[in-house]
Each structure stands twice: as C-alpha cells, then as structure tokens.
C-alpha cells in the first residue's frame, strides 16, 4: 500500500511506500528531511534516558568548578549560575538560565521516561499526547552544550587571576551533553509515533 505524506516545510505532497525507509528521505523540492530512518529500538532509548537521568543528578549534586585565589576558595554548582543572577535581582535572566540548563534537560528526560516506560510494556501513559506536546515545547530550550562552552570561556577568563579546579559535575555535564544528543536523535517525533502506532496495531 502506498500513501501520501506532505512535507511540513514546503507543503509538497509525496507518494511513499509504506515500507519503513532504511535511509532517510528528503523532500524533492525543499530538501528538508521527510522521513527519518528507523533509529534503534525503544530499549536503547530507555537505557540512554536512565543514563542521562543519573548524569543529571550527578551534575546537580556536585560542584561544577572551584576557584582558589589569595587564600579563599569558592565553588559553584550548576544551579548556582542561575541563583547568582537571582541574588543580584536579575530574575528574568536567572529564569532563562535555570530553564535552559536545569529545568529543560530534566523535563526532557522526565517526559521521555514517562512516555517510553509504559510504551515498552505495550501500554500508553495517561495524558500521553499532552506530555508529548510538552516535550516538543521543551526540547528547543535545552542549551546544555552552549552552557559547557560558556563554562570554558569563564574558566579561561578566570585562569589569569585564580587557580581553577574542575569539579565532578563538570565531567558529568560533558557526558550528559553527549547522552542527551544521542537520546534526542533516537527519539525524534517520527520515531516516537512509530513506536506508538506499532503498539496500537
């Protein structure tokens, strides 16, 4: 059976075969990705999500960096970056930093586990569609990789004045960044709904 799919980027209609594409297809007119290939099974995605959750807790439980200058020492955690801004009265900026570095990754991992765990047991989570829409809203606001580069810039600027000691959370943040990237590429909306459709059949 062949069916018609419409390109979300330019509205061109394509006739496609129902066989799942082994390699991704692109729109014939605007070259936007049309169908993404089957990318791993649901167990891999759940394993990555649990791994990301553990790394997320490590990243928040331990100090990110520590500086020593003229006998005094100071450390900060991941959430400390947002709290510092809040303490200086920049609530909006603090909220943005908090959402993009703490709340965003946590919601993304949490939503995915909430959706995928029941799906693995051939059930659907309550409010699946609402949670999926929340996930789609949250996803573009996870800037953890940009934050890591920001840490690097800050440390370079500080290294002239103080001794900089990287903390446990710095390394777990780097790992979290890669895990989240892998998780995101394995749980695209197309892939998620393929799992749901297969479950409903």
């Amino acid at each position, binding site marked *: 059976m062949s069916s018609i799919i419409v390109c979300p980027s330019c509205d*061109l209609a394509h006739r496609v075969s129902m066989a799942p594409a082994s390699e991704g297809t692109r729109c014939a*007119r605007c070259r936007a990705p049309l169908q993404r290939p089957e990318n791993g099974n649901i167990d891999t995605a759940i394993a990555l999500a649990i791994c990301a959750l553990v790394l997320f807790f490590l990243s928040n439980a331990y100090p990110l*960096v520590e500086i020593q200058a003229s006998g005094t020492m100071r450390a900060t955690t991941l959430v400390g*970056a947002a709290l510092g801004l809040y303490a200086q009265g920049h609530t909006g900026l603090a909220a*943005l930093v908090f959402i993009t570095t703490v709340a965003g990754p946590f919601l993304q991992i949490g939503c995915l586990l909430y959706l995928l765990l029941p799906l693995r047991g051939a059930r659907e989570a309550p409010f699946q569609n609402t949670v999926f829409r929340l996930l789609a809203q949250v996803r573009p606001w996870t800037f953890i990789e940009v934050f890591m*580069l920001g840490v690097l810039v800050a440390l370079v600027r500080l290294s002239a004045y103080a001794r900089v000691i990287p903390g446990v959370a710095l390394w777990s943040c780097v790992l979290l960044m890669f895990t989240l990237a892998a998780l995101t590429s394995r749980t695209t909306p197309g892939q998620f709904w393929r799992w749901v459709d297969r479950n409903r059949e």
Partner: protein
Amino acid sequence: MSAAPTGRSLGLLVCLQCRATVRALHVAYPRCPRCYAHLHQRKPHSLGLTAALLVCAAILYIPANLLPVMYTRTIFDDEQDTIISGVLVLLHSGSWPIAVLVFIASIVVPLLKILSLSVVLFSAWRRSPRYRAQRSELFRLVEFIGRWSMLDVYAISLLVALVQIRSLAFVSVGWGALAFAAVVVLTTFAARTFDERLLWETPP
C-alpha cells in the same frame, strides 16, 4: 510544469507536532487524530508575528552591544565590560581561539540571524519565487545556530556565581546581558512562528 500537488491543493494537512498527514475536515478547529495537536493549513498570523518579534530583536541588539554586560569590582579598580571589550580582553590575554569563538557566537550569529530571518520573511511576504531552496536552507541553518549566542550570558552567569569574594573581587551583571538574552529568545520565537511553507506559495 503545472502546479505541483501540495497539501493545500489535495486537501491534506500535516501535523507539525507528530508529522502525520491527515485529510482536512471542514470543522472550525481541526485536531490531529493521532496526537490531538491543533492543525493549521499555515501557522496563524505567521508573517505579522515573525515581523514583530524580529523588529523587537533588532532594536534590542543595539543596547545588547552598547550597554555593559558585566561590572568587575576589585580592590584595585572598577571595570565595566561590554560584549566587544570582553572579546578584546580575551584577545589580549593571549587566548585568541576563545576570543574568536565568543566574537562569532555573540556578535556575528545574532546579526546573521536577524538579517537572514529578515531576508526570508521579506521574500515570503513578496511571494518571491526565486532562490527558494536556498532560502529554505538558510532558514533551517538559522534555527540551528541561533542557540549559540547564549554563550556569553552563560559565561557571565558563571563568573557572577564564582567571583563573590566581597573584599577582593566582585562581579555583577549589567543590563546589556538581559538585552542580549532577550535578542536570543526573541529571534528563537521569531524562527518558530515563521511558517516555511509561505516561501513556496507561488508556482515558479
């Protein structure tokens, strides 16, 4: 070539949330049968919303670059840094790769983002049939690189959290950083409210 078959001409809608293609029903507020998201033939008020957000972002880009983003108070002196002076400090301290990185992420990327969104918006508004594939490509690139301009905001937030040794050194945030973050947020929303399909409305 006559008009290519499109979702609109065939009476099909595509769900932007779960990418399902569904038959358009003549009801007031159609929803996706699979994920129950609202369906629209085109994103509502796309051109107007994108234009408004883009104008705000372009205006805020000026204070973002002129106002200080960071104040440093030490026992020796008081300093204030704008984005550009921060880049120069990095350059003079010998770490030029980092300086280049910050310059690209903070100055070049937001400017490129505002300019390319304007180009794409203008050609969608004019219904220009030329270079559409390239403009589509440009739009997707912009969506992808936009987030990197948060770099300096994060660096400052970390310096604020770390350098709080009251008697010796003290770092505080300037309003430039807020303007800067606002540019990032506004351009991100501008890219999200823009409907790419408006670039392809007229047949070539």
